[in-house]
């Protein structure tokens, strides 16, 4: 089972989904799930193997290389996992919508192109799969019409600028070393001048910053994630952004090597600190903007940006603990963010597309499995001890504290508080609180939706309790980057500056939980009263609206709202308007009068003669 065959199966499956689609929708669903699972199994078989085979097929005389090592296997398994879960989830989510073949083929195509990116061994095939992923994502984002279209436009314009920067970087590397394969470049780039490497790295940061939604380039993410169909939002937030992280790791550690990167500085401002501070800002600001959102998916989207800040902070920090924390957070964020999006998707599916946090409530009793999933997901993103989020945040905090970096640590802490507050609002407004009448008879989420939710929750808890499983792979590729090796055992990291042992940690949590449950069980039951009949001194109250969970953080919003205006978004909007205006002015040149056209010809000839006389080059 070579890599090429795996990619052919993935791409072929994606393109051929139309055939069973013509026959019957049932057959197409089976086909889609089969292809997704086959790809998952295919990637699983490459565990631990490091393959490096140059394809016989050359593109414009350049060799195409597919290779896999621990790093790409780690990402690949995450991609195929999240992808197949989303496909299973969308079996019933997309059932009665039109253009379902189109949807499935694009989901599988994006899956396949992400695998391609991860397995690419040279800058050219990386770029080819990157571009296929970009335009397929554009088509899927604009899948449900209406205001998904401007979101899609914003996404594709930013991603095209990113790909342009990537092409310039890749080809200036080619101009200097006349090769595009990673291994060849990484050996030769050590001799490059700091100016050239920082030029390449800055372009790389632009490309992967846009895909990763770092602060200055984050404006496309909230619209894209909230307008895309929920299962695709899960893939988008879960793993598609992580392609940017994979790019960061690739450029920082595989191509340039961390030692050379940390030397790059410009008058006392080192590139590494710039990246760390960008990560810190990305943690703080989006999390507090998320606090203000009323739309569930938009809240989750802003949190995706926040969590990316953690990952970038971890990776940019450069110590083995930091990189391990960042990489592990990639996997964790994929699991709980995808889980949260799937829960919102399930709620949206059942309540007919309602995502507004102010009009939902009390769905805990009607959709228990979704509630459990959302609960575990929220614990994960906050970083409660039992979940995998705790382990990766612990690693990141550990690096920040160990290296005496109080400000970054404080920013990370601030981010966690923001997450805590907003997810309290998220859980409460959707699942706790009072069940409105119109959702009295709400049915449970269909089984095909519950399977991925349960699987995700299981993974979160499993990796929370036994983090050794993924950490062993991460330790593998961290040492391959030349950082200090970590010794990892099944339940944590052993190091003289503070070991992490999740077993006794979870034992402590479970016992505390058990004690609380005992106290709760024997205490006096309070009489459950509906919130509807609270006395309001005779004023007429809109029955649904009068819940204390409506406009949860209004006072905070009044206080901080002014500072949280998304200035960067307005700048991009202004830029778009400027191009439109220049278009209007420039096309006035074609006045429609034939004599002006002849004037232009005479103008050109006269100008060249004038140039020749007065400026004899």
């Amino acid at each position, binding site marked *: 089972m070579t890599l090429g065959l795996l990619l052919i199966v993935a791409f072929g499956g994606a393109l051929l989904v139309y055939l069973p689609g013509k026959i019957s929708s049932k057959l197409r669903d089976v086909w889609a799930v089969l292809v997704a699972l086959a790809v998952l199994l295919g990637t699983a078989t490459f565990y631990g193997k490091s393959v490096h085979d140059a394809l016989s097929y050359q593109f414009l005389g350049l060799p195409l290389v597919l290779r896999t090592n621990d790093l790409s296997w780690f990402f690949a398994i995450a991609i195929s996992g999240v992808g197949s879960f989303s496909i299973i989830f969308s079996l019933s989510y997309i059932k009665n919508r039109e253009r379902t073949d189109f949807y499935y083929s694009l989901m599988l195509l994006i899956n396949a192109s992400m695998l391609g990116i991860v397995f690419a061994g040279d800058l050219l095939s990386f770029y080819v799969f990157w571009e296929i992923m970009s335009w397929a994502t554009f088509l899927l984002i604009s899948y449900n019409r209406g205001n998904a279209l401007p979101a899609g436009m914003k996404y594709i314009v930013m991603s095209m600028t990113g790909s342009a920067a990537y092409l310039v970087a890749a080809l200036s590397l080619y101009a200097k070393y006349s090769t595009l394969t990673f291994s060849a470049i990484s050996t030769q780039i050590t001799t490059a001048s700091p100016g050239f490497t920082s030029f390449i790295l800055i372009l790389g940061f632009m490309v992967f910053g846009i895909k990763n939604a770092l602060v200055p380039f984050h404006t496309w993410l909230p619209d894209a994630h909230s307008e895309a169909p929920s299962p695709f939002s899960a893939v988008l937030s879960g793993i598609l952004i992580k392609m940017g992280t994979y790019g960061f790791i690739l450029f920082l550690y595989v191509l340039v090597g961390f030692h050379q990167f940390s030397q790059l500085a410009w008058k006392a401002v080192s590139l590494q600190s710039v990246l760390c501070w960008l990560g810190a800002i990305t943690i703080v600001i989006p999390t507090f903007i998320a606090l203000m959102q009323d739309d569930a998916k938009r809240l989750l989207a802003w949190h995706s940006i926040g969590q990316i800040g953690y990952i970038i902070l971890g990776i940019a920090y450069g110590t083995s603990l930091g990189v391990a924390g960042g990489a592990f957070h990639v996997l964790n964020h994929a699991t709980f963010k995808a889980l949260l999006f799937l829960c919102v998707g399930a709620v949206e599916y059942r309540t007919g597309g309602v995502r507004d946090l102010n009009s939902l409530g009390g769905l805990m009793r009607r959709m228990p499995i979704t509630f459990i999933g959302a609960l575990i997901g929220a614990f994960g993103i906050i970083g409660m001890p039992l979940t995998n989020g705790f382990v990766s945040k612990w690693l990141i905090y550990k690096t920040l504290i160990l290296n005496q970096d109080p400000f970054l640590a404080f920013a990370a802490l601030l981010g966690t508080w923001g997450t805590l507050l907003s997810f309290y609002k998220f859980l409460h407004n959707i699942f706790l609180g009072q069940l409105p009448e119109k959702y009295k008879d709400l049915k449970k989420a269909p089984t095909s939706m519950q399977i991925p939710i349960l699987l995700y929750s299981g993974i979160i808890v499993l990796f929370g309790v036994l983090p050794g499983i993924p950490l062993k792979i991460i330790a593998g590729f961290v040492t391959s980057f030349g950082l200090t090796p970590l010794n990892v055992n099944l339940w944590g990291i052993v190091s003289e500056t503070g070991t992490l042992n999740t077993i006794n940690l979870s034992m402590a949590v479970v016992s505390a939980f058990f004690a609380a449950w005992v106290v709760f069980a024997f205490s006096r039951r309070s009489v459950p009263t509906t919130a509807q009949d609270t006395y309001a001194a005779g004023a007429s109250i809109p029955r649904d609206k009068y819940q204390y969970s409506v406009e949860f953080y209004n006072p905070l919003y009044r206080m901080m709202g002014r500072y949280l205006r998304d200035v960067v978004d307005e700048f991009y909007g202004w830029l778009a308007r400027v191009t439109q205006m220049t278009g209007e002015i420039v096309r*006035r040149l074609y006045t429609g*009068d034939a*004599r002006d056209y002849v004037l232009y010809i005479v103008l050109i000839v006269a100008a060249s003669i004038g140039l020749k006389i007065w400026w004899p080059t």
Partner: protein
Amino acid sequence: MFHQSTYFVGCVGLMIVGLYTMLTKKNLIKVIIGLSLFETGIYLLLVVVGYIQGATAPIFSRTTGSPAEMVDPTPQALVLTAIVIGVAVLALALSLTIRLHEHYGTLNLRKIRGLKW
């Protein structure tokens, strides 16, 4: 050198007057007249390029015609082709002008601006 400057002045002058007419006059037919003036200037330039001082026309006959002092025949061949191209373009231009007049009712180029920007 033969007194070629008179011819250069002549053909450059014709070209400039033709271009001036095309640039400043509003009526489409006047512009086409400018075009034909411009092309006449070009034909003059083409023939002048081939002229040799004191040489005779490149036609042999029983009595006269020694190849040594004859004018260069190639530019004259080029001009013949160019003149007929000129008249072909002119005929097409004027037929289009007639159709344009039927559609717009006027030939003022400032008003014929349906297609712009």
